[in-house]
């Protein structure tokens, strides 16, 4: 017993303090440390992801859950639809400004402990779409991310590697250091607002400060230039019409005796120095021939045109898009609202004088890359570190969100509806995998009274970026339009530009192009059928059988082009590379043996299934006249009894050499579209058998491959029959090395015009099945 000292600690006390400092953690802490391995083991082996996929990377995420890579082995196959039951949010795809508020809301609803994997280049840092006006350059601007997986898209094995990295991270965590058990409650992230641009309320003060200054946001040095609208020669077949004469001319063309133009194929706008030129490409259903074009020019100040929706209802969404992106007002349009951007967004983005906050120059090749290529991230040049800009004097704290107005598409007028109806939102986060698509449905009891599709959640600014790219650079971007059918998209773009280039493609390349395009058709229809069954609730088994076959075709694509999905295989005047040595044997085996058996197998497994028939027959009927009027294309059009296929109407490449039929059905319901897709797969296999039998030797590209080309001035509309419908590219060249205007006629986008009509009077449970039968892809719908 030491002597007690009057002032200061006793010897015992000093010893105790020393001991406490160096030796012991409190017994409680020691106990918690023993729990750590068990706690972490439980968490890392039972990671349940959220059913949430944005874009192309989501397809690879689904393939990771499919039979070949099987994320179930890790215990992670239970994708939960409700965020409250999920642990992991895999942000798979480009994060757009329109979608970010939903993502943050979903994240807020997830219980702790929760993790975020940023899958792919787009989710990590904006990816190839970084400069877009609707793109957020990386989800880590809003959410805390645990693991980043580079790749575009990362293959399923890369995603599994990312999952393992997350598991290693969890293994290293300590329960005593876990933030969710800490004293401070993890705050809810403030949901960003959609004002004149995306508003991150954590930056409110800085935004107000910058908007108060006259030069808060950097002014670009080099601005884009306009060209004057080119002359239209009298013998070109294009009609240049005055705005006042438009409706008259349209009606006359629609009702003329010889080849009446009853189908609006494409409607878009180009921004010239002296005018906005709106071009209409019109076709005649069931009668072969090239589409005919009408051009109308309107003044730049206060542009206005009469709407052609009363004549061709398929113009609905396309005119809204022109209004949204160019600001051309269409009088008489039933619902002229923005369609891709949100109401309240400032500016009309596709105009040449609209410059994105990350704008670097009028056209790539940007001088900052070489020879003094100092590496910078573009965020560093931007005052907010984000891809945003606000009008002068904007104050986020005073901003009030604009309410959404509801306008049903086709059919019901709101006055006739009973008062006790319910407006319900389907999406944009869907358990079904069509992507970030939203439908606002007015429900009257069990039946749908009216429906309004809301898009733009995947609007990645292809067209604006496309104007800045060189002609060759656009090829990999076209891969990402309809990301399931990248070969088909490449094909369409090549056809369109080759019309301007006038280059002749060698025989072998033509055959290779057709082979790849038809394999894409088979692959796409497998996916569509598998996911239609998934929407009907068949718990993945038909989808996985279908994905299995698709994987084998993807193996071939990977062998030939280097990537499963983003093939980037076609070039102007041919294809990028010849088949490798082991490809012909695999092709022959697939086309002659495996795929026909697989199609028969799926047919046998599903087509007669009584539950399927009960749920699909008579559901979602699209009458024949409506199908043509609404500019439906692809299997949607053919299942309504109209035998129109671009491969027969305007044969491109060497399709006129092959024997194949155009399958049609009469009923126009979901079951008919399913049957048409099965039949189309068989027809594709027919074409493929002929193609590989006749495949000649020789060159695969005309002339030398050049990395930068100039395309002669002019405009062209080139189209192909993509599996989802008519995919068209309208390109305008001013003679330089990049397009002046680059527009994609997306079949998914235009097929949705008929969705409201198809769903009217149907049960709510059928809406998802009807959407599945149209077979849309958001990369194409929103571009």
């Amino acid at each position, binding site marked *: 017993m030491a002597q007690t000292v009057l002032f200061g600690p006793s010897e015992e006390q000093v010893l105790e303090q020393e001991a406490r400092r160096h030796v012991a953690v409190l017994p409680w802490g020691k106990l918690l440390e023993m729990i750590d391995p068990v706690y972490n083991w439980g968490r890392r082996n039972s990671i349940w992801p959220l059913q949430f996929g944005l874009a192309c990377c989501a397809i690879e995420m689904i393939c990771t859950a499919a039979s070949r890579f099987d994320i179930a082995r890790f215990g992670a196959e239970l994708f939960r639809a409700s965020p409250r039951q999920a642990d992991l949010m895999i942000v798979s795809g480009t994060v757009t400004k329109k979608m970010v508020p939903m993502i943050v809301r979903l994240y807020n609803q997830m219980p702790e402990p929760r993790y975020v994997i940023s899958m792919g*280049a787009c989710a990590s840092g*904006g990816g190839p779409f970084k400069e877009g006006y609707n793109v957020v350059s990386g989800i880590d601007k809003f959410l805390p991310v645990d693991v980043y997986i580079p790749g575009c898209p990362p293959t399923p094995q890369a995603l599994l590697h990312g999952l393992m*990295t997350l598991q290693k991270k969890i293994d290293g965590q300590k329960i005593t250091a876990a933030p969710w058990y800490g004293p401070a409650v993890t705050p809810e992230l403030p949901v960003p607002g959609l004002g004149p641009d995306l508003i991150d309320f954590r930056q409110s003060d800085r935004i107000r400060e910058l908007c108060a200054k006259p030069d808060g946001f950097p002014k670009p040095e080099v601005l884009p230039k306009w060209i004057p609208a080119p002359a239209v020669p009298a013998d070109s077949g294009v009609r240049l019409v005055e705005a006042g004469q438009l409706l008259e001319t349209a009606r006359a063309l629609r009702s003329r005796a010889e080849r009446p133009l009853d189908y609006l194929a494409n409607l878009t706008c180009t921004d010239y120095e002296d005018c906005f030129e709106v071009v209409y490409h019109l076709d005649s259903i069931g009668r072969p021939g090239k589409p005919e074009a009408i051009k109308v020019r309107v003044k730049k100040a206060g542009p206005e045109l009469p709407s052609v929706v009363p004549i061709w209802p398929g113009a609905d969404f396309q005119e809204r898009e022109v209004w949204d992106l160019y600001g051309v007002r269409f009088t008489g349009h039933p619902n002229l609202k923005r369609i891709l951007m949100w109401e309240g967004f400032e500016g009309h983005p596709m105009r040449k004088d609209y410059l994105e906050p990350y704008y670097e120059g009028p056209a790539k090749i940007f001088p900052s*890359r070489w020879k003094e290529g100092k590496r910078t991230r573009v965020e560093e040049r931007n005052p907010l570190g984000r891809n945003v800009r606000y009008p002068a004097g904007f104050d986020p704290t005073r901003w009030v969100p604009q309410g959404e107005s509801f306008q049903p598409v086709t059919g019901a007028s709101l006055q006739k509806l009973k008062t006790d109806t319910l407006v319900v939102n389907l999406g944009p986060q869907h358990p079904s995998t069509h992507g970030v698509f939203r439908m606002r449905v007015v429900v009257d009891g069990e039946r749908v009274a009216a429906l309004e599709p809301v898009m733009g959640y995947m609007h990645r600014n292809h067209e604006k970026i496309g104007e800045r790219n060189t002609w060759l650079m656009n090829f990999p971007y076209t891969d990402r339009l309809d990301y399931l059918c990248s070969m088909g998209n490449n094909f369409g773009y090549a056809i369109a530009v080759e019309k301007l280039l006038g280059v002749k493609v060698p025989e072998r390349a033509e055959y290779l192009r057709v082979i790849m395009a038809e394999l894409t058709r088979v692959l796409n229809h497998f996916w569509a059928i598998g996911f239609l069954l998934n929407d009907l609730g068949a718990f993945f088994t038909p989808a996985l059988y279908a994905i299995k076959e698709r994987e084998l075709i993807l193996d071939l694509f990977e062998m030939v082009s*280097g990537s499963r999905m983003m093939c980037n295989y076609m070039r102007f005047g041919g294809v990028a590379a010849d088949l490798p040595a082991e490809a012909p044997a695999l092709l022959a085996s697939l086309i002659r043996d495996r795929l026909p058996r697989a199609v028969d197998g799926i047919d046998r497994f599903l087509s007669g299934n009584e539950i399927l028939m009960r749920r699909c027959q008579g559901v979602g009927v699209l009458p024949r006249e409506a199908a043509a009027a609404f500019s439906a294309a692809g299997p949607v059009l053919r299942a309504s009894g109209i035998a129109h296929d671009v491969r027969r109407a305007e044969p491109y490449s060497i399709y006129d050499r092959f024997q194949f039929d155009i399958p049609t059905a009469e009923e126009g319901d979901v079951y008919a579209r399913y049957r048409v897709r099965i039949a189309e797969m068989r027809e594709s296999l027919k074409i493929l058998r002929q193609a590989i039998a006749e495949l000649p030797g020789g060159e695969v590209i005309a002339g030398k491959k050049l*990395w930068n080309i100039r395309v002669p001035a002019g405009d062209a509309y080139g189209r192909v029959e993509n599996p989802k419908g008519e995919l068209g590219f309208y390109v305008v060249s001013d003679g330089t090395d990049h397009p002046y205007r680059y527009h994609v006629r997306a079949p998914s986008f235009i097929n949705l015009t008929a969705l409201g009509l198809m769903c009217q009077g149907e049960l709510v449970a059928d809406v998802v099945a009807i959407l599945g039968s149209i077979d849309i892809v958001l990369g194409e719908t929103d571009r």
Partner: protein
Amino acid sequence: MRLYGLELLRGLTITLGHFIASYTVGIRRRFSRAPAGDPIAAQRREGIFTVQYPEEQKPIPERFRVLPVLIFDGKEGERWSENTERCTACGICAKVCPPQCIWIEQAKSAEGKPVPKAGNFYIDADVCMNCGLCAEFCPFDAIKMDHNFELSVTERTNTNLFDINRLHVSTEYYARTHPVAWGEEQARKEAEAQRRAAAKKATP
């Protein structure tokens, strides 16, 4: 006259068939001769379709592209140097890259004059779209697409901006991962060398 309900039962028998095949086909495969990576055999296979990553790897075709790498003439394990690097900083890859994710700083000699070498070379992996155009159009076979996809990280600001040291791989590595392309490149260089030798002999 069709008996409704039979198709439902047939569906059940098909799935039961898959269930049984998932056990029995494995037995046959264990005793069969076809190697696991054989693509033709792969697609005759019924039964389990899974490739158990990471213990098994799906065979990667040669043209598979992830992120680009720079090639230097040397052996694996060596470090690149100015003498062995192939890149001449011509800048074509930076110009042809669609998302413009390549920055090249041309090297300078001691006097400050530019030399055909890359002083610094950056690729932003968070922007690269794996398109392969850089490799396709490089006139010097200096930049190629690599197969490595195991790139996931927990932090990206510093890690995902690849610089010239991280990007360089040896020709031995490239020849091992891309044998056909390497063979073609050697054959092409050989033919070119012979043509030049013949031309030199022709003109004294």
